[in-house]
């Protein structure tokens, strides 16, 4: 006797690489404000990344991870979230973090080696940047439980990379989200590389979205360089979760047009040819072309946007550069709610008082 159970994974795209619609468009494709917001965020992020990479070169910050080429994911995710939702970011989603209220100065502080980068109270209870890959997936699930427990209409969005999907934390978290029906959306930035390890060496699966099947939750694959697809499908998943329909896994296919970080030299392991071939999928010109064709974007607006972003970023950079380091003893001061006695003396000795 043989019975079978079937599963499907769909791939979605609205805008082709050349900016032409690839079929029916969702309502947001006609919503100028949304399109402008997405575009603004992408341009802003790209300029911020460029500036930050330069700052690293001149020693003004430390190792930095750009999101060049992947801006549609941060923008789409950040814009799809409601203010009260909660983000559990990895480290490559500056665009999403800007939507959440993180400022350039916060991120520069963080990459500049200063804990205050994650302390901005305006970002509410959003999680800080998470460096150990995939470990924040379970935090996101725990947070999703917390909001569900309190009957709050909030959703948690967790961002990870393609490499991150190989780690047990990821599976454990989506499995729990499935069985507990948690309001969680996990978005994979499949930029096709985990430092030097290509997507094909991470896993044998045809898609990363199908990993959802192991958790019994919906999984979809989207063109992660199509800001409309990201915004639309992430919002749909978020609203699903908000209405009690449980978690979704979204694989957003993109490409890392930059080095892994400023500490990396991708030319060691990646051909120029491959890199160049992917430039045509760049999300920024894609949305710009679409908006131009829709008659909602002009050269003047572009120029203005570039100027505005640069000015805003520059102001933030100056803020950052003017920041005094924290006093050395700050390493003791947020460690516990109340410093245990045994650390008082270590603190004093650090301050040269003993």
């Amino acid at each position: 006797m043989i019975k079978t159970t079937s599963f499907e994974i769909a791939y979605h795209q609205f805008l082709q690489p050349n900016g032409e619609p690839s079929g029916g468009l969702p309502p947001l494709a006609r919503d100028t404000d949304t399109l402008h917001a997405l575009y603004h965020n992408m341009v802003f992020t790209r300029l911020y990344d460029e500036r930050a990479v330069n700052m690293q070169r001149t020693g003004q910050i430390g190792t930095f991870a750009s999101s060049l080429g992947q801006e549609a994911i941060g923008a789409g995710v950040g814009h799809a979230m409601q203010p009260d939702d909660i983000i559990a970011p990895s480290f490559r989603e500056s665009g999403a973090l800007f939507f959440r209220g993180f400022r350039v100065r916060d991120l520069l502080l963080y990459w500049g080696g200063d804990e205050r980068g994650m302390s901005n109270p305006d970002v509410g209870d959003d999680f800080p940047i998470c460096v150990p890959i995939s470990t924040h997936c379970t935090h996101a699930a725990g947070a999703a439980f917390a909001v569900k427990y309190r009957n709050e209409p909030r959703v948690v969005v967790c961002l990870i990379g393609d490499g991150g999907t190989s780690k047990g934390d990821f599976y454990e978290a989506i499995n729990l989200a499935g069985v507990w029906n948690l309001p969680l959306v996990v978005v994979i930035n499949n930029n096709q590389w985990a430092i030097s390890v290509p997507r094909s060496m991470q896993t044998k699966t045809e898609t990363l979205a199908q990993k959802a099947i192991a958790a019994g939750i919906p999984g979809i694959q989207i063109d992660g360089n199509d800001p409309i697809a990201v915004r639309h499908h992430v919002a749909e998943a978020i609203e699903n979760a908000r209405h009690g329909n449980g978690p979704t896994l979204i694989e957003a296919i993109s490409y890392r047009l930059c080095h892994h970080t400023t500490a990396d030299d991708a030319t060691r392991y990646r051909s120029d040819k491959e890199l160049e071939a992917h430039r045509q999928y760049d999300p920024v010109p894609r949305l710009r072309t679409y908006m131009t064709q829709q008659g909602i974007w002009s050269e003047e607006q572009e120029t203005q946007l570039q100027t505005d972003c640069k000015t805003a970023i520059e102001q933030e950079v100056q803020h950052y550069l003017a920041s005094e380091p924290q006093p050395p003893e700050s390493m003791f001061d947020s460690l516990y709610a109340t410093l245990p006695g045994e650390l008082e003396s270590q603190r004093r000795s650090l301050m040269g008082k003993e």
Partner: protein
Amino acid sequence: MSDITMIEAVNLALHHGMEHDPAMVILGEDIGINGGVFRATVDLLGRFGPERVLDTPLAENMIAGVAVGMAAQGLHPVAEIQFMGFIYPALDQMVSHAGRLRNRTRGRLSCPMVLRAPYGGGIHAPEHHSESTEALFAHIPGLRVVIPSSPTRAYGLLLASIRNPDPVIFLEPKRVYRLMKQGVKDNGEALPLDTCFVLRPGSDITLVSWGAMMHETQLAAEQLASEGVDAEVIDLATIKPIDMETILESVGRTGRCVIIQEAASTCSVGSEIAARLAEEGLMSLFAPIRRVSGYDTVMPMFRNEKHYMPSTERILQAVKETLEYA
């Protein structure tokens, strides 16, 4: 007030916590309808419901990580790891996140969670069911580590841990879960998380121990008393932070110290106490410090476990050598 065992005291404290703190939830493997493999969580599911008493899938890393996420969002999760031998997958979350969240965000977020686990040997359990690796957590900044050794201290220290605004590893010496009964008042009174308990004042020698080994340590002290040796017995109780003041004061008086622990000796909590004595109390010592520890071997399977765990005889032997030192 009734006489109860340590495991009942743990259960009582959990009930008290759940009763008074709507943000508290309990999670772990088999902690729901089964009431925990040691019955620590018995009746909680019936009383507080499946929204607050959460049987999880089998994944310790996930349990710890989910607790971190809950705690960051204002809940007070008390997570159980079924045996300390299965706590290692949870260590990453405790080291990398639980102990750092407050510091990383300069206080914007915090991590008020408790990770409970039965620990230690002596119950004739299978492999991996007899670990005493409290030192791994004691080494980690941002964590607290607490080990009760009696029903009253289990109740008071667990309540304190539940209310603590930072992450606490709460290790329960399962060998003495049912060894003794004490009258425990269910009055919600917590004990301090930074103070040793002097269980027996004495002037000839200081014995420091914690967890199940308090039992052998106290037996040794009684035996010594009958031989005219007046041993001071200290229950460390809070492994991190360590209340060195009490220990230094005691050793300052007795001049001799034996530290008793079930754990492997190297880089252990006993090492730390000895090191601090060597740094801060050296000149009051009349004799070398002695550690009576488990050996630096894998805890043998149970047919031989008694040879691993410090016995009253080994303690007495070390005490005598310390007293006779000249």
